[in-house]
C-alpha cells in the first residue's frame, strides 16, 4: 500500500478501534486493529471490562456460598461451572457422590453443552449474515431452558449442582420433556446443517479462514473444539474422566483442517455425540436413590429430619452459619466445558472459607490466540474468527 499523507505526517497503516461495544464481540471486548488497507497487520485484544473480582469474592464466602458466584462467570454454561467447582471441593474433602447424582449431573451438563453450542451457532451465523439460523437455534435452546427450569427452578443461574450432590431430586414427570427433546433434536440438527453446511456463502466466509496449526494451538494452551479441529483428540471427558464419564459410550470428533468451517462441523458433531450421552444417562438414572453424599456436617440435612431430630438441626445451623472446613491442601480439577478445558483450583487453609479459588477459564486462554488467527487476514475475517473461538466475556474477565 502506498503511504498516505495525513495532517500529522505520512502513515502506512491505520489503527481501528473495534469494540468495546460491538455486536460480534458478544460482550465487552475491545480489539485494537492495525490495518494496512483491509489486511490486519497487528491485533491487540484489550479486556477487563466485565471484571468483577469473582475470585476475590470467593475468599470471603463459605464453600457453599461460592456456588452462586460460579453461575455468573460463563453464563452459557452455569451447570458446568457449578460442576467444576463442586468437583474440586469434593476432591478436597474426599467425598464420594452417589452414582444417581453423577448421572443426573452428566445429563444436565450435556444438555447445557447443546444449549451453549446452539447459542454459539446462532450468534456466529448471525454475525456472518445468516439470520434465520439464529431463530431456529433459539427455538431449541428454549426447550432446554424449560427442562432446566423444571429441574432447578431457574432457566440460567441454576446453582443446581451442590457440594456432595444436587440441590433437588428430579421433579415428578421429568422424563417426558427430556424424552421429547431427545426425539426431536436429531432432526433439528439436520435442519441447521441443511441451512449452512453446503451453503456457498457460509463456506466462502468460513473455509480456510482462521487457520492455526496443532503445534501452535498446543503451545498457546488452546483447548476444546478449537484444539480438536486442529486434529488433537484432547477431551477431558475421555482423558481425565470425571463424574462417571468413563461409563458412557461416545466419540470425540476431530478434524484436521483447523479453520472456521472445520470448527463449525466439529461443534455440530459434538451436539450429536451429546445427544448420545444424554440418552445413555437418561436410561441409567434410576427413579429412586440418593442424590446427596452421606456426609453429616457438610451436606445440609433433609428438611424433614431437621424438624424432628436435634442433631440434624445442629448440623443445619452450623452449615449455614459457620460452614464446613476442608483439611488444608489444594485440589485442581478440569472438566470439558463447551468452550474447552475448564479448570478449578481450590486451596484450603483449614478454615471455613477458601484460601484461594481460581478458575482456568477456556475463553480467556483461547482468546489469547486471536491475534495469531487474524493477523495477515482480512478485516471481515476478524468477525468470523472471534465467533469461531466461542468466547463468553463473563468468563474471560471473571
Amino acid at each position, binding site marked *: 500500500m502506498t503511504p498516505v499523507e495525513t495532517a500529522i505526517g505520512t502513515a502506512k497503516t491505520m489503527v481501528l478501534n473495534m469494540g468495546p461495544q460491538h455486536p460480534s464481540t458478544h460482550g465487552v471486548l475491545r480489539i485494537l486493529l492495525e490495518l494496512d488497507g483491509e489486511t490486519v497487520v497487528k491485533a491487540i485484544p484489550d*479486556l477487563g471490562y466485565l471484571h468483577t473480582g469473582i475470585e476475590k469474592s470467593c475468599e470471603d464466602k463459605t464453600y457453599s456460598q461460592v456456588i452462586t458466584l460460579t453461575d455468573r462467570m460463563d453464563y452459557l454454561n452455569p451447570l458446568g461451572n457449578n460442576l467444576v467447582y463442586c468437583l474440586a471441593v469434593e476432591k478436597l474433602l474426599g467425598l464420594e457422590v452417589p452414582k444417581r447424582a453423577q448421572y443426573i449431573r452428566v445429563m444436565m451438563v450435556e444438555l447445557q453443552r447443546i444449549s451453549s453450542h446452539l447459542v454459539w451457532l446462532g450468534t456466529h451465523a448471525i454475525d456472518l449474515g445468516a439470520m434465520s439460523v439464529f431463530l431456529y437455534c433459539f427455538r431449541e435452546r428454549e426447550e432446554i431452558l424449560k427442562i432446566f427450569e423444571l429441574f432447578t427452578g431457574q432457566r440460567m443461574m441454576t446453582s443446581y449442582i451442590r457440594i456432595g450432590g444436587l440441590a433437588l431430586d428430579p421433579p415428578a414427570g421429568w422424563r417426558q420433556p427430556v424424552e421429547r427433546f431427545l426425539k426431536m433434536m436429531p432432526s433439528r440438527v439436520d435442519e441447521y446443517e441443511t441451512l449452512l453446511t453446503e451453503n456457498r456463502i457460509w463456506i466462502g466466509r468460513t473455509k480456510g479462514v482462521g487457520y492455526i496449526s496443532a503445534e501452535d494451538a498446543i503451545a498457546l494452551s488452546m483447548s476444546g473444539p478449537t484444539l480438536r479441529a486442529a486434529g488433537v483428540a484432547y477431551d477431558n471427558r475421555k482423558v481425565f474422566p470425571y463424574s462417571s464419564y468413563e461409563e458412557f459410550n461416545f466419540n470425540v470428533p476431530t478434524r484436521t483442517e483447523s479453520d472456521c468451517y472445520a470448527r463449525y462441523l466439529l461443534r455440530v458433531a459434538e451436539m450429536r455425540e451429546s445427544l448420545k450421552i444424554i440418552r445413555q444417562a437418561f436410561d441409567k438414572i434410576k427413579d429412586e436413590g440418593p442424590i446427596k453424599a452421606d456426609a453429616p456436617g457438610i451436606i445440609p440435612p433433609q428438611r424433614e429430619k431437621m424438624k424432628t431430630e436435634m442433631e440434624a438441626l445442629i448440623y443445619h445451623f452450623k452449615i449455614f452459619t459457620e460452614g464446613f472446613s476442608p483439611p488444608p491442601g489444594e485440589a485442581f480439577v478440569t472438566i470439558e466445558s463447551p468452550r474447552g478445558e475448564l479448570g478449578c483450583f481450590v486451596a484450603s487453609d483449614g478454615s471455613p472459607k477458601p484460601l484461594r479459588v481460581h478458575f482456568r477459564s477456556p475463553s480467556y486462554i483461547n482468546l*489469547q490466540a486471536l491475534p495469531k488467527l487474524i493477523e495477515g487476514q482480512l478485516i471481515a475475517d476478524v468477525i468470523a474468527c472471534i465467533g469461531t473461538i466461542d468466547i463468553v466475556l463473563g468468563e474471560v474477565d471473571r
Partner: protein
Amino acid sequence: MTEPASKNANVVAECLRSWNSKAVAEVSEYRGETTIVVPRELLRATAEHCRQDAKLQYNFLTDATCVDRSPVEPRFELNYHLVSIPRREKVRLRVWLGGNDPVADSLVPVWPGANWLEREIFDLFGIRFSGHPDLRRILLPEDWEGYPLRRDYPVEGYRDVPNTGELFRKSSTP
C-alpha cells in the same frame, strides 16, 4: 498431607533428578495430585525439560496461578499445572517467592500460552516475571492501585468509591 507417591510422581521426580540433582526440592502427593517444588532459579530450565524430555512430554501448560499465604514467609506460591497429552498425566510445578522480592522467570519462552496467565498473576498479585514480552495489567485499569488478590487487600477495596482511575475522577469533578 502425606500420601504415598504415585507412579507418575516417581517417574517425574526421578527423571528431573537425573537431569539436574537440584531441580527437585520436594515431592508431595495429595488427593492423587503430584506437586513438585522447584527452586526459583531453576524454574524455566525445569519447565523446558518437562516439555522436551521424551519420558515426560508435558507439552500443554493448562494453568498458572498464585496463592498468597501471607503472613507466612515465603508468602507467594506459584502453581503451574502441566498436562502431557500423549501420556495422559498431570503434574503441578510449584515455586515459592518471598514477599519483598516477588520475581520469577517467565515461562513464555517455553509455552507462549503462559503470556496472559502471567499477566493475570502480575495484575492481581503484583508478581513480576523477568523475560516476559508484554508485562502489563490485563483485567484491571492500568492506573489501579494495589494488587487485589493479595490477602492484605480488603475485599471491599481501599476506598468507599470504586477506584475507577484518573480519567473518571477528572471528569466527575465539577
